[in-house]
């Protein structure tokens, strides 16, 4: 049986962590809101991941690294920007689908401007923004998102629905929706 500890740790780092560095930085960047803090968070998370490579049991390296990034980012946010992590009330579940709100956007959205989309994502609450980044930019499944965001799948689904609706509302106000 080949054991992980027998492998050169540097090589292991290149194999497990480095391939997902872009994904790690992307999540850190969207959570931190600027390049400087994102680099600090991504660096700390990757080094933590390196130290805990023994705790990685194989499987989905990207989800595992993103979980470490997310935890590092939230610890950092709580220390430096506590107002950014005000928890959203999860019991507003029935609010997820307001058919009328959706109807207003029933026309297709055409080539929304990149800067407007960025601004739209940035104004979302952190917990909503992260599920959209993980789903739309990183292509994670509901199950993977629930692991990374440490939330039950039902919560992931309601956050995703509400995040999309808020995004549509924002874009409608900016005139990006006809």
């Amino acid at each position, binding site marked *: *049986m080949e*054991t992980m*500890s*027998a492998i050169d*740790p*540097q090589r292991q*780092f290149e194999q497990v962590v480095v391939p997902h*560095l*872009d994904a790690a*930085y*992307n999540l850190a*960047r969207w959570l931190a809101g600027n*390049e400087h803090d*994102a*680099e600090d968070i*991504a*660096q700390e998370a*990757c*080094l933590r991941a390196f*130290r805990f490579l*023994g705790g990685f*049991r194989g499987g989905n390296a990207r989800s595992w690294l993103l979980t470490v990034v997310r935890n590092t980012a939230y610890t950092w946010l709580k220390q430096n920007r506590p107002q950014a992590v005000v928890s959203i009330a999860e019991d507003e*579940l*029935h609010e*997820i*689908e307001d*058919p009328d709100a*959706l*109807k207003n956007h*029933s*026309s*297709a*959205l*055409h*080539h*929304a401007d*990149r800067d407007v*989309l*960025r601004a739209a994502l940035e104004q979302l609450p952190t917990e909503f923004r992260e599920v*959209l980044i993980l*789903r*739309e*930019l990183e292509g994670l*499944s*509901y*199950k993977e998102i*629930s692991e990374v965001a440490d*939330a*039950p*799948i*039902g*919560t992931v*689904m*309601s956050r*995703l*629905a509400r995040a*999309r609706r808020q*995004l*549509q509302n924002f*874009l409608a106000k900016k005139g990006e929706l006809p």
Partner: protein
Amino acid sequence: MNCHEIHPLLHAYVDSELSLMPSLEVDRHLKSCAACAAMKRSLESLRANLRNADLAYRAPESLRARLRKSVAAETEEKPHRVSRPWLWQLIALGSLGFAVFTLMLQPAGISSHDRLADEAISDHVRSLMAGHLMDVASTDQHTVKPWFNGKIDFAPEVKDFAAQGFPLVGGRLDYLEGQTVAALVYQRNKHTINAFVWPAKTASRNSVQEHRGYTVINRDINGLHYCIVSDLNGKELQEFANLLGG
């Protein structure tokens, strides 16, 4: 399904996270309902915009370089990191044990089980999304049990397991395998558990399955069949199933 039932499923539908049966039902509905079809298009268009706008940030070269340097430095500090092959053997043994355990619980009739699991998960997901988790919301077993009287032709046992960490939160009627079933709703921390109950008909069906990220436990208890669904881990859900078995 009507529009009201379709709306909560649309997100999972455009994300390709819906299982076959509900997905076909959504397909069918979209063909005949212009309003829902427009909503679906608007969601798809939002997704396409997010994907095509190149919004992902790429790690700067400086970060890559700094990381390699730090890793090299840490490796030199501890050239021989403590080798713990026994830990890996332990983990491997543990996983093997779990696999064998799971296999032992898998009965032969897999396909009908998969269909039931699929259907039960869809009911579970729908109950979470549509905000119709409960028709009778009560933590009192003496309120929930009589609520089912006259609505179904069997009397499910309703017990609160708050003391064991699985509080009862309510009940409702649902539909599984072509019949009306009782759904008992329990909570474990932030996880919701749906226990679907109906009279056991065929030979006893006991199984534990991991399916689409959910755990599904089938068990016959005192002439009733229980199909228990949750995104809770298998171990704790088994604990819950054992409580039901009393």
